[in-house]
């Protein structure tokens, strides 16, 4: 408010001084010029009359010549005054109108509106720095989850596209430099409802700056950073950045998992990519990537990550790079882009099982994939997309597994933010035996009819599940199985994946385990379906009828029976 107010006042200085001066000169002139009264006696106008006359003249109301008809000299002066006062008014009004077009003014108004909307937020929110492809995916995901997003981006033209998105929770946006700590403060990093800062700009160094600033301003605020360079990532980690996501390493790890343990990869793939599914060939998800000879075209950050994770004995990697020495490729690398058949044949495409197009040029990557497919029809193709819009071309090229940098980051971020139990489950999932993994997959596929499942978290406390808590408080046990499925309510079944109790995680909890206060239970179920646990958590009547055999048709009798039951417990 004050900013805008002072700006307006400062701009109004000149026009106001001009107006005062014009009025003063006109009034003074009217008192000095001699007139004649109706008796022909010489007469001079007083200040009162002069100001009265000038006031209505200046605003061109025009009541006439008051109090007596003017002499010619007075009229000549009035003529001068009329024109000067009109010009002064026009100038004044023009200044005010120009002010509304002024960039400083507009940005001051926008800042003001932004601060106001931050102040009014009364639910948890996340600050998202950078609204590129990644930011866009994250904002969409958060909006689906009903979480408020605050977006800051330097390029205000990017923010315009946000207006076209139909978000169920409209994001609050500010066009400004996020490395400026003032903007971070304005975005509410100290707000009691702020749940975290997510730095996903294109530039690693900017992300680093955001992380430094956030940690200095509010050391307890969780910060999630995207980083593609190891140096910057180490730097971020050194002052307590909570999560650092390197899309290349994440994807490299996934490829390695897909090769060694495709079932587990399938589970990871389901639970991490709940917002936007990755494009992956159905056959590969079941069978996994073959070992043997892999060709990696382009030894950049992605190429290095893939090579790093494929280093387990089953795979022998051949690198194709335009300048192997400069990029530090191992000996025996092939020089070339990989877009030509010669280079690929030299790299052994005929006998290779997998080709990874890892350069940072989409056109080259497409060319590599198409050429490779022509030379060896059985080869599995993995392509990296740099520009999100080119994704569709890679799908048309029948690429088996597409690596979309922004999608990888966005899905990781969303999992960290909104599904802490999923992160835990995935961590522990490595300890699952292959047969247990297979059983779980079969179970999930049966439940979801071979579609992608979704996860849901049940927290047993007075806010998350009041009814279940009330039931347990009455010394009535409720087991994990009883909240995950019931034959009387078909289609609400959920699979309990993880039970977190007092910091201890129970992977695939025992169905007979009774629930306790403070438990957190992770379910997975069919998309767009209400789970039994979701129905039970605040519906004491439903629990009562299902597990106390209180199944009378008349609600009043049900209620009476329930009262009696509760009394007997007391």
């Amino acid at each position, binding site marked *: 408010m004050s900013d805008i107010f002072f700006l307006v006042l400062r701009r109004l200085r000149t026009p106001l001084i001009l107006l*005062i001066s014009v009025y003063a000169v006109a009034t003074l002139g009217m008192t000095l010029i001699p007139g004649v009264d109706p008796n022909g006696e010489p007469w001079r106008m007083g*200040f009162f009359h002069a100001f009265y006359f000038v006031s209505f003249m200046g605003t061109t109301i025009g009541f006439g010549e008051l109090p007596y008809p003017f002499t010619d000299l007075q009229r000549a002066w009035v003529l001068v005054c009329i024109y000067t006062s009109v010009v002064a008014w026009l100038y004044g009004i023009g200044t005010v109108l120009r002010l509304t077009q002024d960039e400083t003014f507009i940005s001051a108004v926008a800042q003001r509106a932004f601060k106001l909307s931050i102040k009014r937020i009364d639910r948890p929110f996340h600050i998202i720095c950078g609204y590129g492809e990644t930011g866009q995916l994250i904002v969409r995901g958060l909006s689906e989850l009903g979480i408020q997003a605050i977006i800051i981006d330097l390029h205000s033209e990017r923010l315009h596209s946000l207006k076209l998105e139909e978000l169920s929770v409209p994001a609050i946006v500010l066009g400004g430099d996020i490395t400026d700590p003032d903007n971070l403060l304005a975005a509410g990093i100290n707000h009691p409802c702020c749940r975290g800062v997510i730095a996903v700009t294109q530039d690693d160094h900017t992300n680093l700056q955001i992380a430094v600033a956030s940690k200095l301003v509010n050391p307890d605020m969780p910060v999630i950073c995207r980083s593609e360079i190891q140096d910057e990532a180490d730097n971020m980690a050194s002052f307590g950045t909570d999560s650092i996501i390197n899309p290349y390493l994440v994807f490299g790890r996934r490829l390695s998992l897909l090769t060694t343990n495709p079932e587990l990869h399938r589970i990871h793939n389901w639970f991490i990519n709940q917002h936007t599914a990755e494009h992956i060939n159905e056959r590969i998800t079941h069978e996994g990537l073959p070992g043997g000879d892999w060709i990696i075209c382009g030894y950049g950050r992605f190429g290095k990550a893939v090579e790093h994770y494929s280093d387990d004995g089953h795979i022998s990697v051949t690198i194709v790079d335009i300048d192997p020495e400069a990029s530090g490729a191992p000996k025996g690398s092939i020089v070339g882009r990989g877009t030509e058949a010669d280079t690929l044949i030299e790299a052994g495409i005929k006998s290779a099982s997998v080709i990874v197009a890892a350069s940072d040029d989409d056109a080259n990557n497409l060319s590599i994939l198409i050429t490779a497919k022509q030379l060896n029809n059985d080869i599995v193709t993995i392509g990296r997309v740099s520009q999100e819009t080119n994704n569709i071309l890679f799908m048309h090229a029948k690429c088996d597994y597409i690596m979309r940098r922004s999608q990888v980051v966005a899905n990781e971020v969303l999992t960290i933010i909104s599904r802490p139990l999923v992160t835990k489950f995935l961590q522990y999932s490595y300890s699952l035996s292959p047969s247990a993994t297979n059983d779980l997959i079969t179970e999930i596929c049966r439940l979801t009819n071979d579609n992608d499942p979704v996860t849901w978290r049940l927290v047993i406390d007075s806010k998350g599940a009041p009814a279940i808590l009330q039931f347990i408080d009455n010394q009535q046990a409720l087991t994990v199985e009883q909240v995950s499925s019931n034959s009387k309510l078909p289609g609400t079944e959920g699979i309990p994946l993880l039970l977190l109790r007092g910091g201890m995680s129970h992977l695939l909890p025992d169905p007979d385990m009774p629930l306790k206060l403070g438990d957190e239970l992770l379910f997975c179920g069919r998309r767009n379906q209400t789970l039994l646990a979701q129905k039970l958590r605040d519906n004491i009547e439903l629990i009562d009828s299902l597990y106390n055999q209180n199944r009378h048709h008349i609600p009043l009798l049900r209620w009476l029976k329930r009262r009696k039951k509760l009394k007997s417990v007391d």
Partner: protein
Amino acid sequence: MNLEKVIFAFFIILALSLNFSFFIGELSEASHHHVNELFAALIVSLICTVMKFGDRTHFGSTVLASSLVVDLLLIAAAITWGVSTVNHGSITPTAMATVTSLAGGALIANLLSVVLLIIETGQIRK
């Protein structure tokens, strides 16, 4: 030399001088106080006020406050004068005394503005 500062100092001192030249003389003696001087003092004081609009410094806001006081008192004086001369030719000694004492009040506030100006200038020298 800062032209803006010169102009502002000029107006603020001019306001004080004009105010004083109107105020000086026998309190209720109309011939000692010319109406044009009151008019000039009022206009100059208004300009001083506008010049400090939107100034966020401590000095600027204090000067703005004191010059608003001057405006208020001088406008009151002008209205008193106007009302007392309606349908008469000349002003009564009682009304004249009121006008002059109001202008005297404004003089104090004007003096304060000038003192603030001097203090601020002194601070810059250090």
